């Protein structure tokens, strides 16, 4: 009986995929196995070579499902655990200031406290004020002013 047979490895890959785990590592009876959830770029290139231009292979989604819900770009920024990321609760257009003339609500280096308005997301002609959900220092602003953003898209990184 194998310590890890094909089916068990599949199990592991599925778990990694379904739970959105980036990487797992197993050590058991002298066996060591590591699986990474992120699909590898070459497959996409391959897809291109087959002339399926903008068409990802249908398995990719299932694999991508393994990744955390945040975008690939997001993942890099996750590395620093002391950073809190404020994401957009709604779909709309991102504005850093109440109107073109005025100053931005916050800039990098500012200390914000829970409840402070940090930006506006316009949707259906409504200006929705977005408040910080933590106390801390703004260390990064992700979208450009006036940029369209979707639900869950990263707005600010805050050092706690």
């Amino acid at each position, binding site marked *: 009986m194998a310590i890890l047979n094909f089916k068990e490895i599949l199990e592991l890959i599925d778990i990694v995929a379904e739970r959105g785990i980036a990487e797992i590592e197993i050590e058991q009876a002298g066996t060591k196995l590591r699986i990474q959830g992120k699909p590898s770029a070459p497959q996409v290139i391959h897809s291109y070579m087959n002339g399926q231009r903008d068409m990802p292979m249908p398995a990719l*989604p299932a694999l991508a499902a393994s990744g955390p819900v945040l975008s690939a770009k997001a993942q890099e920024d996750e590395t620093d655990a002391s950073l809190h990321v404020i994401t957009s609760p709604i779909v709309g257009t991102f504005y850093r200031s109440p109107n073109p003339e005025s100053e931005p609500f916050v800039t990098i280096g500012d200390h914000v406290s829970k409840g402070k308005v940090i930006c506006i997301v316009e949707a*259906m002609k409504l200006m929705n004020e977005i408040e910080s959900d933590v106390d801390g220092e703004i260390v990064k602003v992700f979208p450009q002013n006036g940029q369209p953003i*979707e639900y869950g898209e990263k707005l600010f990184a805050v050092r706690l």
Partner: protein
Amino acid sequence: MISKVLIANRGEIALRVILACKEMGLKTVAVHSEADRDSLHVRYADEDVCIGPAPSRQSYLSISSIIAAAEITGADAIHPGYGFLAENAHFAEIASECGLTFIGPTPESIRLMGDKAKARETAKNAGVPILPGSEGPVKTFSDAADVARVIGFPVILKAAAGGGGRGMRICGAEADLQSAFETARSEAERAFGSADVYVEKYLERPRHIEIQVFGDSSGRIVSLGERECTIQRRHQKLIEESPSPAISQDMRQQMGDAAIRLCRTVNYKNAGTIEFLFQDGQFYFMEMNTRIQVEHPVTEEVTGIDMVKEQIRVADGQPLSVPDGDFRLRGHAMEFRINAEDPVTFAPHPGRIREFNCPGGPGVRVDTAAYRDYVIPPHYDSLIAKLIVRGKDRAETLARGRRALDLFIIEGVKTSIPLHRAILDDPRFIGGDFSTKFLDEFQW
């Protein structure tokens, strides 16, 4: 001119709309919840916007998120698909106010037909046969009892704002009426926010037959024949076919004319479906669905009309492409809804699809957004594929259905395939002799 369509839906119907747009050279915007990031409708659309978390209320039912998604992507039209916001008059209104073409009927038509009592009234005034019953909602038990005595038991109590079996009670004798009346009202209250119920004659063994209609902005309205939707479980359609084995060309004409009369009175635009109960050679108006139906492919297969493209053309102000003159259905078509569910208990069975191999060959069509390794999320309905088979007559269609189901391989989740396969061997189904009771009585 429509140039970019946002599809306010998910799953196979979202993909179906994308296919239609691609064939028309229109750009597409997919919206999706966090649970659907990796759905094919997201992959195949030109643009996609995440509009909220998995629960429908916060994503596919969130009008503001969807309109905002249209704004930031510059979409100029919205296709609602079926379910979710497809029959939400408010959504259609807001879309128009925001300068978006709503690919469907007017908010007024949606609102009117969404109110079952009003719809029934409208049908009656249009000279469409309706089941004997109360004039609109019955406020008190004694009103209900009076009506029931006149039309005779059994009767059915229905929520005025209802649908899908909730707020519905069948009552065989006067003794049971009081309790039936109260449960129906409280269910209706809970489900639809209105306790209004009405009383109707109840048919013991009816068929469910619906007429597909289409109206354009010139006021032209056509009928595309009927769909036989009698095979249902818990008021959910499972198998649909066209033509119906129970409907003659003359009856088709009568029902089509009735449907068109009704649409004329409300100046109906775009695709719609009038559902009738049919028993003993008589048909009775049940309700109207103001959207594309899940089962629209069976009509496409026997008419050769791409109904989704037709919806978009009509919404864009173009005339119907359907030719005038005596209309006949060509050949026979049948749809099997493949749900990820236990075929015996009907319990949903979400999870990862480990094998997925669709049947092919002549007369076989599959509409699906599923694929091998796709993970079916638990948040939405269990429909994962629609198998549509077409033949020169019903016998060939049944034979195709059997071999197509035999070769439709889905592993990893339980599906309704074995149930469909068993139904295709049932003498009563083969004989075309069945009522909405069929599945309740079906042994396998």
